[in-house]
């Protein structure tokens, strides 16, 4: 994945064929998470905040359902990836990049939560958990490319 053009809030990325497959693979995993990554509050009055805690859970569930529809539309959109001889070109605006970053991070963090919130990933690889760790790293790779483009 490489940024090849950035002009007037429009970004064009080149994807090798293998990279497109990897991006599609991790996006198809969405949604990975099923609840909040943290409680609403660590020290607030539990009884007072119970209703608000549920509101957070509901808001995140609604957000995931909306995002899932967008992911399906993105993956199913004809012409989203323009094919050329060497690979594909993907055109995104700033809002689409922000959205893609959020989705990729959900997959990355969701996998981490599923793995038991490990402090580091190396031990998991040695224990045979290669695939989820690889998926997290693939998300990170695409996130860094997108963030780099936004900062360019």
């Amino acid at each position, binding site marked *: 994945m490489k940024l090849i053009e950035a002009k007037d809030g429009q970004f064009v990325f080149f994807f090798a064929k293998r990279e497109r497959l990897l991006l599609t693979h991790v996006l198809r995993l969405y949604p990975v998470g099923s609840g909040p990554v*943290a409680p609403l509050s660590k020290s607030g009055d539990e009884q007072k905040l119970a209703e608000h805690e549920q509101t957070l859970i509901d808001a*995140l569930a609604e957000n995931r359902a909306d995002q899932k529809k967008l992911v399906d539309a993105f993956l199913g959109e004809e012409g989203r990836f323009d094919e050329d001889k060497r690979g594909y070109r993907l055109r995104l605006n700033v809002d689409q990049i922000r959205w893609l970053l959020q989705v990729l991070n*959900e997959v*990355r963090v969701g996998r981490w939560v599923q793995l038991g919130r490990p402090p*580091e990933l190396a031990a998991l690889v040695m224990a045979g958990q290669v695939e989820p760790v690889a998926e997290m790293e693939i998300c990170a790779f695409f996130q860094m490319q997108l*963030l780099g483009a936004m900062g360019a």
Partner: protein
Amino acid sequence: MAATIELPDVVREEDTESKENLDPGFVVICWDDPVNLMDYVTHVFQTVFGWTKEKAEFHMLEVHQKGKSVLARESMERAECYVHELQKHQLHATMEPAK
């Protein structure tokens, strides 16, 4: 002929709350975790709070180096709204009663 305007009576409140007695509200805190990318955290702070890159990086580094950063002090409703937005981006954010 110009009409006269009748001004409303002004009632001056004699008793006001001292700052200490006002609701202190809630602080929005972002906690460190080993999974969110540093550049992504900066990006989310900029997006959610509308901060400059410099301010967002300052708070991101505070999270990374000190384990947490207080991002805002707000009413309960606004603090809750910020936590929702930060958690939608998968950041480990909570709201705690301000002291």
